């Protein structure tokens, strides 16, 4: 089975920071400005039959959205999803329904995935009763067999229990039993062990691997936990803010990660070895907003080895000004020389502020002084600093070099450090 997924922007109408619905003057005049969360922004990948592909990243990277879209629980804004040779991207729900038994999902929170008012047996049987012509008795038999397979034994005892009577690990086994009953070919596992205690995780992971071997299953394994992904997955794709930034065989990536973000992730994992020193400095800041992602390479504002062409923009300059004011000794001086932070505006590659003509020179000097002091890459990324029309000081950065996924040493990475091809 080949499973190419090409998706562009998935439009998720999420938390609106600035929802403005303007009144229509006429039908044509209607303008609604709804911010779009670029949850997944142009990713392509395949999952080969029988493999476990890991989708790894922190919150906001788009991995959960990807998992949902792959199963058509969400509709992609653009792009194609081809499942077992069928393009399911735009199918209606009624056309999807016969395919659904072949694609299942296991969620992170088993407690939320099981109806508290249904017994375990009923929950597990439910999909059979919906999708097949089986009688209750046959469905019950099938459910009991599945429960035995996942280790919920004695199955007859667990059959009549309610979710609240089970531990987290047992609940997750019930969820897995329900997922395999319809004999799916693809299972999307979204953080299947994240909410389980450490001492229990291994058994659930082992169960997933056993079932894969027994039934020839294929998994899309979604997690933020690199250590688990390393153990379970054949290949992994690392996501950051809607993009896949590195993808390849697990062993290859862990032995020699290329992308600075992958390296940072690996280095950040707390390891139960007292006295271990972190191999490198942590990137600063956090994953930014997916509504207005950084220009160029989305990781550039936090990247310890960024280049001047990685996508520097006005917002980075203002962030830098703000960072400088953490130093109490110079905060007052900078406020004097460059003005309060909110006097500065940004638009794409530029940061600018209005200024009285007689103060323009002084402000220009102040900005140039700040840049002389700045990290080399920020200074080198500047294209121009000038007073426009005598009353606006503008700092403009060089345009980014567009990113092109690059094959290097057995994996694909999206990073200018490795990019040799001309876009």
């Amino acid at each position: 089975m080949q499973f190419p997924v090409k998706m562009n922007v998935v439009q998720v109408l999420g938390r609106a920071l600035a929802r403005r619905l303007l009144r229509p003057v006429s039908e044509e005049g209607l303008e609604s400005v709804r911010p779009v969360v670029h949850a997944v922004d142009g990713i392509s990948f395949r999952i080969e039959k029988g493999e476990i592909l890991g989708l790894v990243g922190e919150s906001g990277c788009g991995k959960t959205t990807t998992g949902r879209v792959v199963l058509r629980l969400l509709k992609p804004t653009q792009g194609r999803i081809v499942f077992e040779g069928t393009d399911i991207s735009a199918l209606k729900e009624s056309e999807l329904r016969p395919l659904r038994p072949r694609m299942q999902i296991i969620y992170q929170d088993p407690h939320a995935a099981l109806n508290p008012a249904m017994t375990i047996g009923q929950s597990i049987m439910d999909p059979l009763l919906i999708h097949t012509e089986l009688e209750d008795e046959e469905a019950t038999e099938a459910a009991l067999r599945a429960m035995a397979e996942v280790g919920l034994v004695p199955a007859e005892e667990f059959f009549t229990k309610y979710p609240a009577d089970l531990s987290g690990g047992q609940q997750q086994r019930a969820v897995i039993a329900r997922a395999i009953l319809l004999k799916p070919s693809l299972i999307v596992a979204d953080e299947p062990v994240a909410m389980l205690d450490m001492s229990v995780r291994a058994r659930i992971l082992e169960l997933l691997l056993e079932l894969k071997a027994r039934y020839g299953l294929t998994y899309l394994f979604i997690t933020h936990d690199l250590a688990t992904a390393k153990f379970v997955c054949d290949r992994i794709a690392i996501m950051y803010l809607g993009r896949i930034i590195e993808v390849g065989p697990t062993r290859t990536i862990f032995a020699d990660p290329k992308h600075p973000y992958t390296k940072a992730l690996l280095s950040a994992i707390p390891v139960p070895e007292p006295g271990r020193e972190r191999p490198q400095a942590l990137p600063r800041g956090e994953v930014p907003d997916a509504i207005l992602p950084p220009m160029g390479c989305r990781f550039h504002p936090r990247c310890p080895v960024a280049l001047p062409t990685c996508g520097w923009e006005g917002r980075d300059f203002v962030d830098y000004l703000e960072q400088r004011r953490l130093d109490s000794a110079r905060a007052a001086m900078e406020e004097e020389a460059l003005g309060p932070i909110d006097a500065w505006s940004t638009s794409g590659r530029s940061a600018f502020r209005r200024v009285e003509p007689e103060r323009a020179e002084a402000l220009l000097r102040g900005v140039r002084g700040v840049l002389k002091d700045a990290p080399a890459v920020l200074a080198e990324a500047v294209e121009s600093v000038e007073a426009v029309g005598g009353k606006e000081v503008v700092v403009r950065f060089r345009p980014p070099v567009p990113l092109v996924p690059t094959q290097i040493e057995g994996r694909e990475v999206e990073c200018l450090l490795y990019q040799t091809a001309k876009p």
Partner: protein
Amino acid sequence: MSETVLRVQGLTVHYHTRRGPVRAVDDVSFDLREGETLGVVGETGCGKSTVGKAILGLLPPRTLVRGALTLRGKDLLKLPEAEYRRLRGEELALIFQDPMTRLDPLMTIREHFEETIRAHDPGASKDEAAARAVKVLRSMGIPESRLDHYPHEFSGGMRQRIMIAMALVLNPKLLVADEPTTALDVIVEAQILEILKDLRRAYAMTLLLITHNLGIVAEVSDRTAVMYAGKLAELGPVADVFRRPIHPYTQGLLASTIHLRTERLRSIDGVPPSLLDPPSGCRFHPRCPFAKDVCQEEEPPMVEYRPGQFAACHFGGDFV
């Protein structure tokens, strides 16, 4: 020998429920020394959060509490609420898991700090409060320009830094952090851990760190206390407990922790016991690969099997 900041003696906490008393913590004792970081670690239901809440006087009413909690000579369990309120903030501070639930969405950060500072120092002016807030926020990497923002305008990691700043602004002697990074991404988590480590170095702060994550304990703690089913299983310097664990539960927990160098998947058989009716003798015996008859009959005492390293196991000596 540094001073003991907190002495926990025979702490017992039974929650009142309709089905009977839940024995969340049973006869737990340890000392917390000045300037040290003690990582209290264990899985769901082990009682570690309950210990934290007991220290801060945040247990629900009608909870049975026995034993002694002595903070620099004061018995916290006998303290009237008014005294406790004063203590919280000035001597004892707490950081929780989810800062969003602890910050008032209708108050700016400035207002949060004003409230905290003036609750303990009614004479402080708004300007003084703001100045103190700015200083401690800067040390957490939060610029002054954000003082008048609301909690929802910050990311998760920044909110946690704000929480830490608020906890520190009154210069407490003891900071209790209950799963401070569980809700955060791994890179932000690492940043917060660096902050906690800096606090130890710069302020010689005493920190009680409660977590289920062994990696965090290894990184930040001096000593660790491993809890299981309401009891203390093992206590000792973090390097010793991690490299040469004595209690079979500690051994199992370490072995089943998945990290980058994990070769084999391991787990502990069985499930954690009910705290309504815990197993007799050693509470771990039903799951312990080394259990013998005595383990079911008698509760094991805490024995110092190596200097500074204690374990509650009848056969701890076999593992030394």
